[in-house]
């Protein structure tokens, strides 16, 4: 039997970080149903997985593999250990064993990742494939959802995906790799099209046939398109509904590991070479184009720092984070910060900058437009969870955001403040006045129907839901910043 190893957990992932309500919950993960060889569930804020007899045998083999140990220690695979089911009080039923995984601080989905994040997740997947193959194992599927983030570091979470490689078996997950990693990346790189709505719109990704329809004749000359898109679409069409068992025929003809290794190697080169097109977005240069003078920006930063320093926060959100200047301040006093912005290039900047900083472990950048945030969806509308279902913040930054919420997105001010209050979070929130040039730009070409957009109404609403602890005028009174705690 395996020696139980102590789980190495980040400070932000230990159970003591959880609220009492979360600790008491015992629940099955609704999204964990596709593979009958395992099932994820949560108890006391810990993450467990039941294993079938077959999955247990695979796990025991995987645990001994040197590549697995090395990748686990690097954090590229989630730390996992076998638990004593009896001691934990688990009724195994038809299951053979249970393992425990280190907890991921905040779950995110590929339709919330920037290009660089999806690309790095794809490269991690291919690297794990390469290492598994050299140990005569394989990843049996290629779901992009099997990769999660700890800060800006990707980690693979689906342990039962590792299986021994059967003689003559093709790479079963190849098609899925294309649908959930390669095609979305190609869409952004070759067509300048945002892949996130495509991934959010279909849980299984982009099928070859649809991807083929999006490619022009010229695109066929681009790296990887002829084979991975055109040929795959044509072959799938030719064989759809066919009864031929190609798998057996391939095995018989001597299909071997070398072919998969070559495919993985070429895919790695292909993915590594993909660069996003259409990289000029509205906010990508915010750091250089924002409307603050140096001294005023410093005052704003000091205010946020003082507010953040009032205590240690378990989870902070930075809404409309832009390139993350204030996320970094919040991170000084938070276990974990989820930084969200609707502009993917701003998030890409933040991601690349944090990635270059080897000490960065606390900031998770996500592409999220608050007015059209990720919903609960998939099987039972619960397979993928809405942003608010994945952990509520204790501190929320809403800096230079409110005018976009009320004027650009037409969300009533009272509704927005009420929503923030329903999260049970404290807030650092900035009101941008009507005389501010940013607000005037927004109002330039639309009817001013925003009767609620006034500093007095804002303050009234804020104090109705929160306790205002500090406030300060900024930009000569054109803006006003508040620190308010949850009631």
């Amino acid at each position, binding site marked *: 039997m395996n020696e139980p190893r102590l789980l190495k957990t980040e400070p932000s992932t230990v159970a003591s970080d959880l609220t009492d309500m979360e600790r008491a919950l015992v629940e099955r993960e609704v999204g964990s149903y596709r593979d009958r060889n395992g099932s994820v569930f949560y108890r006391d804020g810990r993450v467990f997985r039941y294993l079938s007899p077959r999955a*247990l045998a695979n796990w025991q083999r995987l645990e001994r593999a040197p590549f697995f140990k090395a990748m686990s220690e690097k954090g590229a695979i989630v730390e996992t250990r076998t638990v004593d089911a009896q001691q934990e009080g688990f009724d195994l039923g038809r299951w053979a064993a249970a393992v425990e995984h280190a907890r991921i601080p905040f779950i995110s989905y590929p339709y919330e990742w920037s290009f660089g994040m999806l690309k790095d997740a794809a490269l991690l997947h291919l690297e794990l494939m390469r290492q598994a193959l050299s140990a005569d194992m394989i990843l049996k599927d290629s779901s992009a959802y099997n990769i999660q983030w700890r800060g800006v570091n990707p980690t693979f979470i689906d342990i039962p995906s590792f299986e021994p490689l059967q003689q003559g078996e093709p790479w079963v997950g190849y*098609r899925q790799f294309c649908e959930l990693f390669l095609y979305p990346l190609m869409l952004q790189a070759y067509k300048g099209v945002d892949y996130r709505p495509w991934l959010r719109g279909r849980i299984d990704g982009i099928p070859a046939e649809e991807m083929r329809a999006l490619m022009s004749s010229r695109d066929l000359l681009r790296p990887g398109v002829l084979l991975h898109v055109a040929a795959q679409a044509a*072959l*799938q069409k030719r064989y759809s509904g066919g009864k031929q068992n*190609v798998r*057996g025929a391939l095995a*018989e003809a001597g*299909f071997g590991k070398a072919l998969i290794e*070559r495919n993985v190697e070429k895919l790695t080169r292909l993915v590594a070479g993909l660069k996003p097109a259409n990289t000029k977005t509205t906010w990508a240069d915010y750091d250089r184009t924002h409307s603050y003078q140096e001294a005023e920006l410093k005052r704003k930063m000091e205010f946020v720092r003082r507010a953040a320093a009032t205590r240690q926060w378990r989870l902070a959100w930075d809404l409309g984070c832009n390139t993350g200047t204030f996320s970094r301040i919040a991170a000084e006093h938070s276990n974990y910060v989820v930084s969200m912005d609707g502009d993917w290039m701003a998030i890409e900047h933040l991601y690349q900058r944090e990635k270059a900083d080897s000490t960065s472990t606390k900031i998770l950048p996500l592409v999220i437009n608050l007015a059209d945030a990720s919903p609960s969806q998939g099987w039972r509308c619960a397979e993928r969870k809405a942003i608010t279902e994945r952990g509520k913040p204790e501190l929320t930054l809403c800096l230079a955001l409110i005018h976009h919420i009320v004027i650009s997105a037409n969300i009533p001010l009272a509704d927005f403040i009420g929503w923030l209050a329903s999260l049970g979070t404290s807030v650092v929130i900035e009101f941008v006045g009507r005389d501010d040039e940013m607000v005037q730009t927004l109002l330039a070409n639309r009817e001013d129907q925003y009767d609620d957009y006034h500093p007095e109404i804002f303050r009234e609403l804020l104090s109705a839901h929160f306790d205002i602890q500090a406030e300060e005028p900024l930009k000569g009174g054109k803006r006003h910043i508040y620190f308010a705690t949850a009631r």
Partner: protein
Amino acid sequence: MQLKFAAGLFPLTLSLLFVGVSTSGAHAYLDAGTGSMILQVLLGGIAGLAIAGKLYWHRFLTAIGIRREAPQPVEKEESLPEVRADR
């Protein structure tokens, strides 16, 4: 247009390899996609060419009656009792 024609033609040529093949499969919860599996021969480079050659040879022998359709290979099952004993 020529390019489109070529792009459509070569997977078709490749697909000829697999007309009539039939053997048993292995287990996996994910559908690998028949077309996607066939493509992997092509993606395998030189090693793939050898396999394509073998598949052609097999078809040729079957066609001229020297060889019959491939027998069903025995699938290797996981040794479940051993695993249970290990608990």
